[in-house]
């Protein structure tokens, strides 16, 4: 096992940070329209004042906030995926597959469909409902899997899949009874879609996610011990249940914060942690920051595809992450066949 050292942490963060910066710069450069990026951002563009204003609006008002939102959502989903994989000791745990994202979506869609989010102060209601949905889902899954003895892998994943299906039914029911005109909106939401957000939204999301990340990072060392096995961790003095509860709660919070702005973007929390682990090993003190940066870079790249592949038509980014992620899931599944994960 690769050992944790500060220089290694700095090295990995620097590499992935550089990757993220390159991806963001490239993403700023491409879009449905041709915009002179450098002239617009630094110094005077040759065109008329109207053209300059238009270019600034496209770059700073639409492209940049969208890229930043994709980065935050991608980083959040990857970190929460890594956390779920650690504390549930299941390599296929991912907020999407476990139904945690689905629970968040149900909460958010319920508030939106019944118009609650348009009430005064309602803007806070959607993320809160999403959090309520995601947290209760994960605890429900946990309880149900526990009923079968121990919280082992197969039951937990299967329970997640079933809970997910149940939530889809509830979401479709809400659309049917509440408001058919929102069908397209909800469809995009179910697939996972990034829209250019207002700046205050971005700021609030960034603060919430930074807080969540800090708590998870404080637990990183204990997550390392827990991935050895709960008994072993307990023997080493880790309060396993408390760490588990905190980590799951925070990961659900992080998922909900992301999902309440992007909808159900799938597979980021699965692919990114595994890719990072393959390269830099399983130490969570490196894994978590690497997931934050790598997840950000991945979703920014995927979303750039979503808004440019068929430009000026856009598609939900979830199509792209699923198209890449589903084969990746199967690859992992094959790779672990007969291994310890599918007991």
């Amino acid at each position, binding site marked *: 096992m690769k050992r944790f050292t500060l220089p290694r942490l700095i090295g990995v963060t620097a590499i992935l940070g550089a990757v993220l910066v390159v991806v963001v710069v490239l993403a700023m450069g491409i*879009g*449905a*329209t041709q915009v002179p990026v450098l002239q617009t951002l630094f110094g005077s563009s040759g065109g008329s004042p*109207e053209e300059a*204003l*238009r270019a*600034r*609006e*496209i770059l700073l*008002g*639409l*492209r940049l906030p969208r890229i930043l939102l994709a980065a935050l959502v991608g980083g959040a989903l990857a970190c929460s995926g890594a956390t779920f994989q650690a504390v549930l000791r299941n390599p296929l745990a991912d907020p999407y597959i476990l139904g945690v994202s689905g629970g968040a979506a149900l909460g958010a869609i319920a508030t939106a469909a019944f*118009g609650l989010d*348009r009430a005064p102060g309602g803007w806070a209601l959607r993320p809160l409902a999403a959090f309520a949905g995601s947290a209760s889902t994960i605890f429900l899954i946990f309880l149900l899997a526990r009923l079968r003895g121990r919280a082992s892998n197969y039951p937990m994943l299967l329970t997640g899949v079933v809970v997910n299906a149940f939530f889809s039914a509830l979401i479709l029911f809400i659309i049917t009874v509440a*408001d*058919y*005109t*929102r069908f*397209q*909106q909800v469809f*995009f939401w179910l697939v996972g*879609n990034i*829209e*250019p957000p*207002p700046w205050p939204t971005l700021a609030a999301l960034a603060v919430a996610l930074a807080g969540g990340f800090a708590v998870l990072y404080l637990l990183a060392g204990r997550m390392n011990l827990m991935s050895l096995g709960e008994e072993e961790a307990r023997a080493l003095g880790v309060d396993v249940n408390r760490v588990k509860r905190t980590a799951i709660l925070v990961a659900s919070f992080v998922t909900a914060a992301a999902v309440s702005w992007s909808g159900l973007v799938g597979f980021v929390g699965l692919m990114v942690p595994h890719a990072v682990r393959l390269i830099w090993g399983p130490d969570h003190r490196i894994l978590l920051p690497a997931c934050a940066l790598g997840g950000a870079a991945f979703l920014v790249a995927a979303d750039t595809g979503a*808004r440019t592949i068929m*430009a*000026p*038509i*856009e*598609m*939900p980014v979830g199509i792209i992450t699923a198209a890449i992620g589903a084969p990746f899931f199967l690859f992992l599944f094959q790779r672990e066949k007969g291994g310890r994960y599918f007991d």
Partner: protein
Amino acid sequence: MLLRAQPRPPVGAFSFLILVLAAIVIAACGGSAPGRTSAQSGPAAAPAQTAASASGVTRDTAVAEGVDPAEDATSGPSATSPGAGPVRRIVSLAPNITEILFALGFGDRVVGVTEFCNYPPEALRLPKVGGFVNPNAEVILALHPDLVVATPNVGNRAFVERLIAVGARVVVVQARDVAEIDPAIKAIANAAGDPRAGRALVARLRADLDRERGRVASLPRTRTLFCIQVEPLVVAGRGSYPGDLIELAGGENIVPASAGQYPNFSLEAVVAAAPDSIVQSLMDTREGATGGDRLMAFWGRLGSIPAVKGKRVFAVPGDVVLRPGPRVAQGVAALIALLHPEAAPEAPATSVPK
């Protein structure tokens, strides 16, 4: 796309082809042996057929004007209702069909409508047979209709086939854009046994449309974005019904033809195209007056768009601009009032609904 792009063959050959195809499809389906569908032919057969095939609806339910029961390809009893006699009980399966039925003067014969049929107001009092996508077959049959008028719709093909299989007489008409309204009206009038009412209504609509078009004929075109919803942004492309209305109202759709009818459109592309006016239809009347405010809340941050800077972002009631039917001239007038207020006859015909 492919089907729409095809040049239309001569009408005579085409209607013969429809008859043959109808016979083949019906024979192949087998199930519709008792089906009293009408596959009629005539001058307007081409658009109706194109429409039907493009949407995946079988040709055995494609109906066009030019009724001649003798030409019915299906089987004996058809075109006019079973047991002969005039059509007395009609069920409508779409809001625009309900509007057409009432405009034809058949309102007193309509015995069932969908939940979304809210115009004319009389329609609100009629029995509901379910939604637009999910009508209820039992409710429909319990109304003992001698004519059911449906429109091709995502997922209702099997439903219509089932209705036919249990013996209901169904005509399927398609009106997706302005050009398809006239044939749809005539087909419905013919199916109800009153072709003259169809011809009269079509003539009236054409005159109304010509009058509206005349108002803006000499005016410069206003570059316009018609948006169905924001977040995600869905807009009306060329060839869609609202797209047609925009052109008729002296607007120029900023959405390129290559984008299709109702694309999820890039906001960047909207900023770059710099429309002079933005029109948004409000489908949900419950949004009420806040619809307009929410529009500005969304568009307000994009002040470089001339429509936003000049405060020409408008909300219009969806009914009037989204439903291909007899209120087409009203829809055009409503848009003229917004896009070319100087050409509108009097006060704007639309506002945000109550």
